[in-house]
């Protein structure tokens, strides 16, 4: 299991270290720094590094690495999942899991890590319970604590910890009972030069925000549950009922959580809602040009919003001189990122970005792939639809709402 955890920033400082068994000297991180130096960018640092006596398992998140050290055979996925859970927990406590957030709250991070892991075994990772044990920082509470001398640490055992529904606390009370569901679908696609789809898939989630009093038992039925053949559930979902009746039955955790995620594979044809036409020539000297046109396609009458087109230009590209018909564009000569913020695409003439590019040298440079981001409200690309939501076990009438959003996941167009 986990012996130690080091939190390291991209410049190679150890921000925090925590040991669950005996202390492992931080010089172990040198192996990690070596790997970090070898990698072209922080994302490329291999997640598992073997050293003579230890294994370093790391995850990368917003400029920091969480590096777990293990001395023996350990399921690496468990460690990685746990580290991601740490990131999620810290994010929910401090709004971000970053260098400065950790430095500013190092004692609380330390306390949290201690609650989350015992002897290297994950102990409490449910956010609901953690928040009961250690109250998240909050300006008002800080002031109150200052005055009353109380602390953020709970003095009693949280009740949910050991019940058969460990994800929910007891005695939740709201004046306004409400439950919102977001059906979010992300389209991952690779489109080739000619505009044909190489592969496409939908990664979907149903995220939920529940503010319900007591112990509500919810049942959600879908119009077309057959769509979901590859699905992973939050532990609260009763799998038996799903298998037999294709009904989602669950006692929800309090607050925000992901009810389920699903994957609609490549065999099913996914409607691609956007197209990008491109004509790019990158060449040293004069004659380099770039022209992009982006427009809706099979968007089922919905409007494309928040459209952003991005290209990371090759190193040889010095500058861009482009004119967008809609939106704004920017080019960062340091990171070579060309970003075109199109915004909403209205009906009519499709937006274009046209102009010249300055390229150093004389050789012809391969144009980089284009990535596109967009959002479509009130549409689930797969056609998934919630039929109804019923509540049992409590006798108030909650306010319910469902929202559908389709977004671009990793949507790439080859050039």
């Amino acid at each position, binding site marked *: 299991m986990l012996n130690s955890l080091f939190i390291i920033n991209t410049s190679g400082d*150890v921000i925090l*270290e925590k*040991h669950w*068994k*005996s*202390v492992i000297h*931080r010089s172990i991180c040198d192996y990690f720094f070596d790997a970090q130096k070898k*990698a072209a960018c922080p*994302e490329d640092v*291999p*997640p*598992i590094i073997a050293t003579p*006596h230890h*294994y370093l398992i790391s*995850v*990368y998140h917003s400029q920091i690495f969480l590096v777990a050290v*293990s001395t*023996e*055979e350990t*399921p690496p*996925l468990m460690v*990685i999942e746990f*580290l*991601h859970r740490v990131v999620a927990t810290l994010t929910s406590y401090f709004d971000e899991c970053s260098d400065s957030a950790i*430095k*500013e709250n*190092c*004692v*609380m991070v*330390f*306390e949290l890590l*201690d609650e989350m892991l*015992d002897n290297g*075994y994950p102990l409490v*990772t*449910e956010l609901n319970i953690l928040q009961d044990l250690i109250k998240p920082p909050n*300006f008002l509470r*800080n002031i109150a604590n200052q005055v009353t*001398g109380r*602390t953020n640490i709970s*003095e*009693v*055992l949280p009740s949910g910890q*050991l019940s058969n529904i*460990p994800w929910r606390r007891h005695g939740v009370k709201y004046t306004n009972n409400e439950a919102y569901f977001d059906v979010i679908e992300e389209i*991952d696609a690779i489109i080739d030069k000619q505009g044909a789809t*190489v*592969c496409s*898939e939908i990664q979907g989630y149903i995220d939920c925000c529940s503010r319900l009093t007591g112990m509500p038992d919810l049942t959600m039925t879908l119009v077309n549950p057959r769509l979901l053949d*590859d*699905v*992973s559930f939050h*532990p609260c979902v009763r799998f038996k009922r799903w298998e037999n009746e294709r009904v989602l039955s669950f006692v929800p955790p309090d607050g925000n959580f992901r009810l*389920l995620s699903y*994957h609609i*594979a490549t*065999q099913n044809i996914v409607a691609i809602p956007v197209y990008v036409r491109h004509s790019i020539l990158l060449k040293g000297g004069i004659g380099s040009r770039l022209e992009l046109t982006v427009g809706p396609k099979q968007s089922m009458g919905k409007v494309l919003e928040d459209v952003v087109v991005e290209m990371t230009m090759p190193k040889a590209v010095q500058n861009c001189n482009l004119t967008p018909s809609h939106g704004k564009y920017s080019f960062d000569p340091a990171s070579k990122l060309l970003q075109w913020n199109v915004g909403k695409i209205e009906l009519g003439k499709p937006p274009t970005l046209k102009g010249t590019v300055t390229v150093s040298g004389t050789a012809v440079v*391969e144009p980089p792939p284009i990535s596109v981001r967009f959002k479509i409200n009130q549409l689930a690309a797969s056609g998934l639809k919630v039929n109804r939501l019923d509540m049992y076990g409590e006798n108030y009438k909650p306010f319910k709402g469902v929202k559908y959003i389709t977004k671009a996941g*990793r949507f*790439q167009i080859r050039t």
Partner: protein
Amino acid sequence: MTDSKYFTTTKKGEIFELKTELNSDKKEKKREAVKKVIASMTVGKDVSALFPDVINCMQTDNVELKKLVYLYLMNYAKSQPDMAIMAVNTFVKDCEDPNPLIRALAVRTMGCIRVEKITEYLCEPLRKCMKDEDPYVRKTAAVCVAKLYDMNPQLVEEQGFVELLNDLLSDANPMVVANAVAALSEINESKPLIEVNSQMVNKLLTALNECTEWGQVFILDALSGYTPKDEREAQNICERISPRLAHANAAVVLSTVKVLMKLIEMLPADSDFIASLTKKLAPPMVTLLSAEPEIQYVALRNINLIVQKRPDILKQEMKVFFVKYNDPIYVKMEKLDVMIRLAQQSNIAQVLSELKEYATEVDVDFVRKSVRAIGRCAIKVEQSAERCVATLLELIQTKVNYVVQEAVVVIKDIFRKYPNRYESIISTLCENLDTLDEPEARASMIWIIGEYAERIDNADELLESFVDGFHDENTQVQLQLLTSVVKLFLKRPTDTQQLVQRVLSLATQDSDNPDLRDRGYIYWRLLSADPAAAKEVVLAEKPLISEETDLLEPSLLDQLVCHIGSLASVYHKPPSSFVDNTKAPLRQLQPNAAALATNGSSTGMDMDSAPGLIGVPSVGGAAGGAVPSQDTLIADLLQLDMNPMGGVAAPAAPAAAHVAAPGGGLDDLLGLGGGPSYGAAPAADPMAAWGMAPAAAAPAPSGGGLNDLFGLGGPGSPSLGGMLGGGGQQGYQTPKALWLDAATHKGLQVEGAMVRKNGAIYMEMAITNKAMQPLSDFAIQFNKNSFGLVPAQPLHIAAPVFPNQTTQVSLQLATNGPVQKMEPLANVQIAMKNNVDVFYFATIVPMLVYFAEDGLMEKRDFLELWKEIPEANEQQFTIANVRNLSADDICAKLQANNVFTVARRSVDGQELLYHSIKYTNKIVVLSELKISAASQSLTLSLKSRHQTALVSLEEVYQKIFDN
């Protein structure tokens, strides 16, 4: 109001400041001070000096303060064990606290304090907590047992905590069960105390549905160690765990896949149940690929295993492995590997167009791998070969240096796989000759030119251009150049004689590289002896290259499939290499091993197997009888190599070794070996000859060695090992023991024994290669041991050991190495290295190899010494005389093992024999044997100044007598 304020320091000195604050009366100030201490601790500052002051804050009602102090304690208790004792009372008290949170906290922290003295105090509270009414406390206590076991395993066993843990498996609360499983599996890892049985499996399956995600991982991992009784049980387990495939936690999913993959093996292969189960397996694995990149990486490494074992599962899912340009490089590389594994006729078009796309990306390593992948597709799917070649040609046209080089390397493989099909492209390749600057690409190109010399008009010119810079080339290129020029000569003898002579002299006379010289001499001899035979050997039919070059060995694959989701499966290394027991010798040997690793020469493997030695076995029979005068040939060969070294015996020894290598190979090459005794271990003899060479002052054994070496001894000639032993009297020889097992050491199997012969200790080894690639670059090193045993010379195995071959090695050892007493006394830790890895093993050396030849004592000295050694140092044993040996037999037997008879006398029908033994480290042991006519047993009394020298000597005697 952030914690960063805790880092601000005043000029006076932080520690001093904190000390005063910690001793402050104000609660608030105290708490802030402890927080500052913790903050310093989190960034690795040493605040252990504050230990007593922090401990003083422990007695408090404030839970936060208590927790903080506990955090501090866990970190520093080890450095202040005496002070830590002070905290024990508070712990014991807290374990009785009415608040379960405090009870759990106390027992948890106590387990984390890794101080020997505290463990005794821990037992009672822990026992109580394991039976606590609150499940939270019980579950914390379960983990605490694992912690305690880590510190003091004996205590845990004595106190019966393992049984208590076992009881917790039936706990009503699933969380408690999960933690008990986790603790038990951790304990079981170091020493199997509890076996998973079917009753326990039922309990675990019940708990599985209700416990937390992490608990599910523990339970599934425990289940994977269980082998069901029959099919029905296996099927039942499968059914009960398969819903876990839909879990949101990737670790749970992969652990479920592991158990299922293992159980599937037990079920009949064609049942419907299997079909439906394998159908269920694909979607969750695909889902893992849309998770975070780190998870994708682990998933891909495991998918790589799964598709090797069961290609059907993911055969429809090719597209999910397509690479996105912003995938991290480690994900890209793995995806590529899986893509090639899944490539087949139906999807090859898609795969190829993807690979072509990747070959134009920016990342050099990825591009290279993509080009290689195209070549592998061509070799794997015959129908696609043409398209692959066309794609490669297109890529060559891009003139991107590294793309061209990679393409040339893979085209060479395609040529070998499909001879006489795509040679039309050779001209295009030749155009790019100048751009090649990497050894592998150059060597490949040279191979192509040599192989198709008859079709390339200016082949001689091309090769000549390479020959001009012969000495600047890498060894790999030099070897290849040598072979190719010889091929060229055999194909076009008229106009290339000069060239071949030039290359041969470059290789044999001007090179320091033994491999190169060896090969040069072989060719030279071959060509001068019989060009016809040379043609048959050099231009022989090449063995086919396999479709999948990088498949894991089946045995390793099976092992790894049972460990899906573990580190072993990520590294594709046998799980045993991750277990703790290998760690002990590892730690001690580390510096040596590092040296060893750097010492080893890193001659690259021969990529062109056909004309070199690799192709040998297939040629053997065909060429048999073609060469007339092997005697002269051998004589010449010997002379050749001896000459530059001078005819003196001592320096000739290493030379002999060099001769041996090509000689052994050559014989076999020409099929002259003939005799069955020889054929059995062709590669072994050169080695053995070398082992003996330094001792070659006496010409007889050396001659014998050479005889044998060249197969002249005929079928009846004794093996070399026998020859060596034959010189002296035959002592007891320990049978060979298995030192390294192929299954767990990457296909390297070593059986061996330590023997004493001709006044020296030898390590006799049989090295078997069960891997799929040749093993070479062997080296060996000993750790410090009781008798200072070290190799007298480096381990030298001239020829690589090829798959499924065994090489016999006899390595002379000396006893002048560094000494360190080992436990057990005769234990020796050995590190063995080859081109694959470094392996460690330990062996018990039979004591009698340390008995020196000069162990015979004068009677008087013996008597004096016997008297001098106190009675306390005497040990008596009874030894069974099963074979009913007479006194004379016994003396003869002992004498053969360097146990020397000093005196004999008869008293009252009893025969008394006095013997002396001298170890190589000059310690003397005296023995007295009483043989009574009446009884079958002997009484042995042993005496030595050093008690330890007597350890297990009686077993040695027994062995000698029984032999």
